[in-house]
């Protein structure tokens, strides 16, 4: 006979000793109707909005609609076996989830319960899933970079710790790949990661967890999964649960990164819940508060100042700022960014990374559209060296796009135009990057330097990738100390430029690529 991990005598003894035998006084109601995961309850006169409701079969619900004679609630979990006339009890608890470093390396559901079969999680704290975002006074401006290790992103659309950067694109354009690379790149940087999977196939989530484990990224990552087969209520709540877990690190003076993959599906789940609760539908049948649904979530990603952290931790952590950076993901249909949810989230976030199907299919991966992708504050948070060297890349690419479209009709081009076209082709080739190969600051600096100083101008387009990997291998082996110091400081000066230049000249003179 199989025993559960919870069935150890000591544990059972502790539980019996801690079991509170007092009579409980609770407000009770009766289930009037139950359909599609929505329960109407008669009674429950003292229920609070957002309160957890306990049903007689042991599952929980969340009170969403408080009406004069009835309460509309969603069932969190299984609603089979519940029937009309069953009792429903108030719990007096606003919905909360366990938080803390104990969750790292685990896969949990929207209620924070582990679903990875590794036994119970011993967390010490619980936080409500809906919390007010930090106010104006408690914030600090963004000035530290959140490096993704992706060349095109760190040079052209940089993101600072505490920002919200949207990843938007059609299906199969590599949105999740960017997010996973960003998580892998946080290894050894002290950034805690939370990956929230909403409405995805369980097999995809399992694949992602396996990849993260393979690259040693699960040690600092929490995965919150509400799969496609989970009830809509769980899918709707997953981002808030993940955010509460991320806020714990922010409030304790640490840096955290959260990925919501993806908010389109969460909006769908919320639309389902809202329509079943008979809330009036608006544009695209979304309820009236679908903007607030996302704005209150993303507003919680922020950088907070040391006073806030000190006050929150009651003086335990002093002089440290905290941050929660968010990468929400939105899936568009046929590149339609003017649909309701994409426009909402674009206007809420600090910028977007736009992924294009055509670019993806023509082999430019990550398929980032340099013209449409922006970061509104990111520049202030770039390391000095990337800021200095990355400026030219964006311009080169933008000019190249324009000229490439124009020159399709021109038969012969003047020298300047041809040079720009050739350069653009090479920079585009240089910006392609394989999945799971994030670059460090110093390596990125060398790559950008090579492009800026014309070291790749005489390399064939097809060979740019080989040139780059050979160059980085050379730098890693010959100049490892210099590279380490560059990774560490991110500084840039004339001496550093001269050192980089001589290194690259040495490498080119060898001609080994």
């Amino acid at each position, binding site marked *: 006979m199989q025993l559960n991990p919870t069935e150890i005598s000591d544990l059972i003894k502790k539980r*019996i000793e801690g079991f509170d035998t007092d*009579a409980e006084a*609770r407000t009770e109601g009766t289930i*009037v109707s139950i359909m599609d995961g929505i329960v109407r309850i008669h009674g429950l006169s003292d229920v609070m909005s957002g309160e957890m409701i306990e049903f007689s079969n*042991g599952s929980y619900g969340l009170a969403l609609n408080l009406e004069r*004679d009835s309460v509309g609630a969603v069932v969190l979990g299984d609603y089979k076996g519940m029937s009309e006339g069953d009792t429903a009890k108030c719990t007096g608890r606003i919905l909360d989830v366990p938080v803390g470093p104990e969750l790292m390396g685990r896969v949990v559901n929207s209620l924070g319960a582990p679903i990875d079969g590794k036994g119970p999680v011993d967390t010490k704290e619980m936080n409500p899933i809906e919390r007010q975002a930090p106010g104006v006074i408690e914030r600090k401006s963004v000035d530290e970079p959140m490096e993704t290790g992706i060349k095109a992103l760190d040079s052209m659309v940089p993101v600072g710790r505490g920002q919200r950067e949207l990843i938007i694109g059609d299906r199969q354009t590599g949105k999740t790949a960017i997010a996973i690379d960003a998580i892998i790149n946080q290894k050894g940087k002290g950034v805690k990661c939370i990956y929230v999977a909403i409405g995805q196939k369980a097999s995809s989530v399992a694949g992602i967890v396996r990849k993260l484990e393979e690259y040693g990224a699960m040690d600092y990552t929490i995965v919150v999964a509400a799969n496609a087969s989970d009830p809509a209520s769980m899918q709707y709540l997953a981002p808030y649960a993940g955010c509460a877990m991320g806020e714990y690190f922010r409030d304790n003076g640490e840096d955290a990164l959260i990925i919501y993959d993806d908010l389109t599906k969460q909006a769908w789940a919320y639309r389902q819940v809202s329509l079943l609760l008979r809330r009036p539908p608006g544009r695209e049948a979304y309820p009236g508060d679908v903007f607030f649904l996302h704005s209150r979530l993303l507003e919680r990603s922020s950088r907070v100042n040391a006073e806030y952290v000190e006050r929150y931790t009651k003086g335990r952590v002093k002089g440290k700022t905290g941050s929660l950076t968010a990468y929400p993901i939105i899936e568009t249909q046929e590149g339609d960014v003017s649909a309701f949810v994409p426009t909402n989230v674009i206007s809420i976030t600090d910028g977007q990374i736009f992924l294009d199907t055509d670019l993806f299919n023509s082999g430019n991966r990550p398929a980032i559209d340099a013209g449409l992708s922006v970061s509104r504050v990111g520049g202030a948070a770039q390391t000095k060296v990337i800021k200095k060297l990355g400026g030219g890349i964006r311009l080169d690419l933008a000019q190249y796009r324009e000229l490439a479209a124009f020159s399709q009709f021109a038969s012969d081009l003047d020298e300047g135009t041809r040079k720009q076209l050739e350069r653009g082709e090479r920079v585009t080739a240089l910006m392609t990057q394989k999945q799971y190969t994030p670059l460090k600051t110093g390596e990125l600096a060398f790559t950008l330097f090579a492009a800026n100083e014309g070291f790749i101008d005489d390399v064939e387009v097809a060979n740019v990738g080989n040139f780059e990997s050979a160059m980085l291998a050379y730098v890693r082996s010959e100049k490892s100390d210099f590279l380490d110091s560059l990774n560490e400081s991110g500084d840039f000066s004339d001496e550093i430029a001269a050192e980089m230049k001589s290194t690259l000249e040495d490498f080119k003179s060898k001609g080994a690529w």
Partner: protein
Amino acid sequence: MSELTTAARPYARAVFEMANEAGGLAKWSELLAFMGAVASNEEVQTLLANPKMAKQVGADAFIKLCDKKLDDKAENLVKMLAENDRLSLLPEMSVIYETLKDEAEGSVEALVTAAKKLTQAEEKSIAAALKKRLGRDVKLKVSVDESLLGGAIIRAGDLVMDGSLKGRLNKMTNVMSH
């Protein structure tokens, strides 16, 4: 159920206010309970639900059924209810009326379900404890349910105090299994 309450509330409130002003709270309480009992009779319900019957005929039939126990005002209430097709709300109205009356009189009804028959002294001590907790006079209604095994469950409105052995065992089962 909740829809019925919503519809019945304005009628019950109107009757209550009228009775309160005229000083006939107890009389109306009886009247409504009686009419509610008549209206919840299955045959009466079938009759009232018959779409072929004119509204006025339904009202007259209902008044006749009540066998001259109704005064003018009560007859008017029945006629008005029939006109709005709300005669079926009478049982609900009676319940709401009682809560309004209890509220006005500062008392509350508490249902006590005990595992075994309570002694007079026990009933008194429960009533005294509830009075202290709810801040109102308590009317106890006691029933016995042996399946509770021990202790008692007290219900006052939506508030439920579960002090039964069965409830504790259930709670313990939940704690152990999660």
